[in-house]
């Protein structure tokens, strides 16, 4: 174990604020620094992950104040897996956006600087959300995440980014309000902010407070997790943000949002009915999102809605509970991060020159940019779950888990939703390859580094598809960890005994 | 040696079929003439015609399919004949009657029509093609009651072999009395099979100028005439075998077959031609009902 989880937060925060200064020295450093930092963090967290998979979770205390008083970071196989995934996606997003043309359109390098700064902060915040063991700290990280996301969504002046960003901000601040209220109730009743401690004392809560807090949490986190009907902001944000940011949303931000819901339901509160709630809300989210996606005319919006739908599926998987369910859900999150980011990255290059990003403008683009189109098609095939691509295994896992719990109706619903998915994704693929070009739009070749990160994602899709075992092991471990609530509490609270 | 005898037997059968068939045709022409108040040709006129046609020297053709059409016709007429027991007890040229059953024969009988159809098609004469399409449509029409009748008998006596059916009729008496409904359906189907008026929509001398055969002359026509007559005899024999228990000797066979032959002939004399869809609808009307009734009857019994 080379470093402690703290570095995963501290270093990027520090680096983020260092970027402008470095920029003064040499402009190129603005672009390079984030990559270097993220690369190091990735190495760090992979190492930590390996360690924790062998020796169990690592609990790091900040500033010597042991839980339940101080703030602690918990790096378990579960949270560690998510953090690693986020950092990995962050790295790819950085590679992809390195000298991304539209950033260079602006004459000064200010926007570039802001972009990288915000990106750093966003990744940091997401990692922080996943790692922190303190509920108020969680709130802070969520807020940082939010603010950076607002900024990045509004990145383009010439688009409707501001509008999307405002919607995001509006809903997001409501979310933070409820979150704060909930935290307040918890604190006023239990006098603690540490998750493990709350989990221990949760039974002391009066039912009314417990329920109210739970509901407030559910709504607040539901907004982050793009749960219907709280997800009005999501499609706009996805479709208006720059391509790499869209990929980052799908690959990083949503995962943080989901994590909060899961942590709440699996660790914080022992409340009956929450799993059913997850399943029902997940299904509803799925249905409405896929319906909307089906009748989209703009590519990125379609991808956005489809992403929401996937999140719904993940919620369902988590709602199934048990180890298989969690395993399936994590697998889905992984696949979704990989595939959807690939779709965003390649898709936005396919409609690069077009102003409105209409799907109909994709006609026959396959001839003009073969590799990008192929990658998009690969992503489409993977996400609708055609074997032998990555998406299939997660879908199979979900269905098997559902079947084990005897939820045949849910299986049927999921599959019928997949039918819709198949249709609208293959309609796009058809347009790309099998419909004659009818627009005179030019094309923009992806930059080598963008192509590189897309190829990496494509390769992962194929590898996981042909040999899922590369990922299943850690997934199983992670899901086991998440379900083992007792050891979580134990590991966190034991520190206080060990130190004083 | 055995093989030689068999072959000779087969040839003899064919010759007999040819003679009898031609004779019936002649009689048909005679009777028709009499009904229409004409003198009509002598009964042996058909032999003369056949001889004349075959011995004609020149013959134009429009290609190999037309050239081979008579061969196809002969296959189904002669072939079917060989697979049908001519006389009961097989004292007389068993031929191949133990080697095929009803369903096989049903299909084998079609081969000729198909070859003929292709041959006629190649002539490029529109009338020919029209005639063919009519013929095929009509076939779909009458096959239904015909098959129903046959299936009815098969399930009544648990066999699909003609010889077995004949043997059974020795014990239980003729099938036309055992399962009269089936017999009626079969007879009505036979009207279509023989393509005499009102079902002569294939040839339709008035509108199609004798349809499929309009481009055939000389030895083609001769062969087709002979095959037609053989085929007529074959069908009649088949009916006799199926419904009248077959014949013990040639005389009885002639009587029985001729009696049957009178049915389509006389029915034709007194009725004008149908249009194709009328013909089809006709066969899918009462004949089919009878066939269904026969099925039910044979299941119940």
């Amino acid at each position, binding site marked *: 174990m080379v470093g402690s989880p703290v570095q995963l937060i501290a270093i990027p925060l520090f680096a983020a604020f260092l970027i402008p200064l470095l920029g003064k020295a040499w402009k190129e450093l603005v672009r390079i620094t984030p990559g270097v930092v993220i690369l190091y963090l990735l190495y760090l967290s992979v190492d930590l992950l390996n360690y924790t998979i062998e020796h169990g979770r690592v609990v790091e205390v900040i500033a010597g104040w042991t839980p339940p008083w101080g703030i602690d970071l918990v790096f378990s196989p579960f949270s560690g897996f998510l953090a690693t995934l986020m950092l990995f996606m962050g790295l790819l997003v950085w590679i992809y956006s390195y000298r991304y043309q539209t950033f260079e359109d602006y004459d000064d390098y200010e926007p570039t600087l802001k972009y990288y700064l915000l990106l750093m902060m966003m990744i940091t915040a997401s990692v922080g959300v996943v790692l922190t063991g303190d509920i108020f700290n969680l709130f802070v990280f969520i807020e940082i995440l939010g603010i950076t996301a607002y900024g990045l969504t509004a990145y383009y002046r010439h688009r409707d980014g501001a509008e999307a960003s405002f919607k995001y901000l509006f809903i997001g601040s409501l979310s933070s309000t409820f979150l704060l209220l909930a935290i307040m109730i918890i604190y006023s009743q239990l006098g603690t902010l540490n998750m493990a401690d709350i989990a221990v004392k949760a039974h002391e809560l009066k039912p009314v407070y417990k329920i109210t807090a739970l509901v407030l949490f559910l709504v607040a986190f539901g907004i982050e997790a793009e749960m219907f009907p709280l997800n009005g902001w999501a499609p706009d944000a996805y479709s208006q943000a720059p391509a790499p940011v869209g990929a980052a949303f799908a690959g990083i931000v949503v995962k943080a949002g989901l994590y909060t819901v899961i942590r709440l339901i699996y660790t914080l509160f022992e409340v009956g009915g929450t799993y059913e709630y997850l399943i029902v809300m997940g299904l509803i989210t799925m249905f409405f999102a896929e319906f909307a996606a089906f*009748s989209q005319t703009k590519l990125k919006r379609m991808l956005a809605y489809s992403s929401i739908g996937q999140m719904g599926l993940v919620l369902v998987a988590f709602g199934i509970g048990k180890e298989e369910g969690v395993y399936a859900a994590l697998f889905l999150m992984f696949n979704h991060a990989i595939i959807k980011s690939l779709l965003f990255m390649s898709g936005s290059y396919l409609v690069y020159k077009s102003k409105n990003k209409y799907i109909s403008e994709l006609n026959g683009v396959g001839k003009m940019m073969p590799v990008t189109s192929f990658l998009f098609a690969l992503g489409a095939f993977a996400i609708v779950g055609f074997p032998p691509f990555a998406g299939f295994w997660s879908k199979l896992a979900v269905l098997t888990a559902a079947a084990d719990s005897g939820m045949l109706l849910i299986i049927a619903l999921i599959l019928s939703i997949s039918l819709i998915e198949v249709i609208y994704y293959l309609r796009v693929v058809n347009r790309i390859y099998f419909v004659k070009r009818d627009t005179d739009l030019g094309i923009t070749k992806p930059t080598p580094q963008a192509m590189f990160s897309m190829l990496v994602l494509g390769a992962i899709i194929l590898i996981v598809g042909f040999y899922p075992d590369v990922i299943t092991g850690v997934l199983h471990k992670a899901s086991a960890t998440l379900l083992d609530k007792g050891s979580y509490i134990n590991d966190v609270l034991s520190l206080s005994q060990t130190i004083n | 040696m055995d093989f030689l005898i068999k072959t000779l037997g087969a040839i003899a059968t064919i010759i007999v079929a040819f003679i009898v068939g031609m004779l019936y045709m002649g009689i048909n022409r005679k009777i028709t003439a009499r009904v229409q108040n004409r003198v009509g040709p002598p009964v042996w006129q058909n032999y003369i015609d056949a001889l004349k046609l075959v011995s004609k020297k020149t013959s134009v053709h429009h290609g190999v399919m037309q050239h081979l059409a008579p061969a*196809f016709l002969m296959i189904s007429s002669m072939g079917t004949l060989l697979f049908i027991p001519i006389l009961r007890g097989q004292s007389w040229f068993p031929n191949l009657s133990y080697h095929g059953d009803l369903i096989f024969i049903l299909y084998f009988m079609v081969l000729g029509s198909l070859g003929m159809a292709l041959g006629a098609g190649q002539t490029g004469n529109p009338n020919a093609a029209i005639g063919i399409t009519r013929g095929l449509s009509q076939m779909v029409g009458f096959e239904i009651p015909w098959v129903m009748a046959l299936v009815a008998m098969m399930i009544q006596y648990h066999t699909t072999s003609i010889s077995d059916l004949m043997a059974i009729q020795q014990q239980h008496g003729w099938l036309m009395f055992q399962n009269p409904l089936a017999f009626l359906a079969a007879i009505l189907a036979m009207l279509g099979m023989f393509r005499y008026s009102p079902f002569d929509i294939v040839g339709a001398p008035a509108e199609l100028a004798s349809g499929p055969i309009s481009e055939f002359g000389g030895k083609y026509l001769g062969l087709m005439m002979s095959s037609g007559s053989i085929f007529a005899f074959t069908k009649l024999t088949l009916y006799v075998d199926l419904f009248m228990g077959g014949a013990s000797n040639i005389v009885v066979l002639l009587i029985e077959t001729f009696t049957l032959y009178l049915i389509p002939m006389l029915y034709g004399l007194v009725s004008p031609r149908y249009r194709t869809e009328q013909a089809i609808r006709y066969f899918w009307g009462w004949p089919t009902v009878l066939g269904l009734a026969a099925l039910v009857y044979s299941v119940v019994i």
Partner: protein
Amino acid sequence: MNIIHITLGILLGGAILTYFANKISGVVRDLMFISTIVVAAALFFIKMTPDTVAVFNLGGITLSLGMNHLGLLFSIIILGLAVLAGFYSLPYMKGKDNLGFFYMNYLLSIFGMMGIVMSKDLVSFFIFWEIMTWSSYLIVVYNGNKANKIGIKYILFSALGAYSMLMAIVMVYSQLHSFSIADLSAGFTTMPASYQITIALLLITGFAVKAAMMPLHVWAPDAYSNAPMSYTAMFSGALSKMGVYGLVIVFVTMVSHLPQNFWVRETIAWLGAITAGMATIYAIFQDDAKKLLAYSSVAQLGYIITGVAIGTEISMIAALMLSIVHGMFKANFFMVVGAVERQAGTTDLTVLTGLIRKMPWTFFSALMSAIALAGIPPLVGYVGKWMLYESLISNGNYILVIVIFFASTAGFLYVFKILYSIFLGQEEPEFENVKEAPALMVIPMVIIALLLGFFGAFPGYLLKYIDNALVVMGYPVSQGKWWEMTTLFNAWGNKVSTDLIMYTTITVFVTIAIVLFYRWKNGRYVSTKDISLSGEMPKEDENYSFKLDFYKPFERAISPLLRYKISKYYNEFADGMEAFFDWTRRIYNGNAQTYAIYVITFLVILLLIANNIFTV
């Protein structure tokens, strides 16, 4: 590393290599493609022994591949056709663009089919099934013609089938905690009754889609006719048989144990028969050769489904026999149409005419396939039909016999229509300089045509394999009871001697032919314009071939049947759904405040009902 790895490896690797070989040069690509098929087929038939097994462990799931005689039977169809159609497609596809893509998917679908017949567990079965599906889909839309209509229809129905299959698979897993097919057939009876029937029906649905059974057939005509003919030969010949393969397994191992056994069988049998009947009728009225053959394929598959559903010994033999034979003659027919399309430039039956003298060999193979298709002796097509009838009669499905008989009799109509319209009729100046197709295309067709004749005389050579396959499926040995090398028996011991039929036919034919060719000199050829059309003779520029409203009288006769078209209902349903989807997305009305109100409302409602849904 046994023959299974090798075969699949060669096919998969060959597919990818073929794609990249395209970048090098067309010749390399073609060589790569054809050698892949030939080598795979050769190795397979030389090396494959029915007890080979290969096991993979993926994602905690054991995928086991193996081979038994049933699989062997179907792999004969697949690889046999693959080799012939493969050679055929080299000249046929010459000059078309992105052929690397086409050939890759061609090989991938073969890979998928081989995987299916080798699969010993449901997951690998499903994986290969999907690979087959999407690769064939990519070929269906390959030429880009109405891709979003035809292609989506195909993939939608395929996915529907595949997903119902998937649901059945996970249900099986939840009950038996094993994906193995052997465990399934062993433990099927131990499941709760509701699961049994559900699983069986779901699987039947899944396979019926591929086997184009009504009402799941609507994709088939378009898909078959839209794919390049050199692939449709595989598509209709082999790929649709995968559905039959699945149905055989389902009916033997599951349906026979159901309490509702009888009803399931009858329903499916009837659906098959109705499919046969209706598809035949629609085939009769098609004016495009591809469409006609496509419908005819659906009809033929209808017979097969009926045979499988009845599931008696002889009907199984009949169904498998029909599968093989249909594979042969339908593939041949599609190749013929492909050749005509390539040489004459169209497949419109109202345009084509009089090609027989231009393309004699093509006509010959078309004629043989036609006779086989119509089930006329002495060609092999008749064996399967004969057995089917016998089985239905001896099994007491009397009405069913009539329906099927009607279908096959009506089959003559379209058989004649396609033969006549393409090859016969008056010759047209526009087709003056049409040449016979290149040898690589003709030879496969003629080979199949001759095989049809050969097996007609000696069906035993095919029935042997079928017998082995059925023994695997738990049926008693049928040789000697139902068939000998050249003889067929029915339930009541009546027999048909195929060889004698063949010999008689040939004898008579040759004799008469000699009579006809006697003094052949005198018979001179005259052009098809030289006809006795009431004395006048059509000029060069006018063509008197009978083309339009070919079967108008028949159409009038059966007009009541034509009133119902199932695709109409499907379209209405689809439109309704789309309208509904479009309506639901209005929820996202773009106003941030509305979204905020959603949030608050949701919160309030949740607070109000929280006590009912959450139990502390």
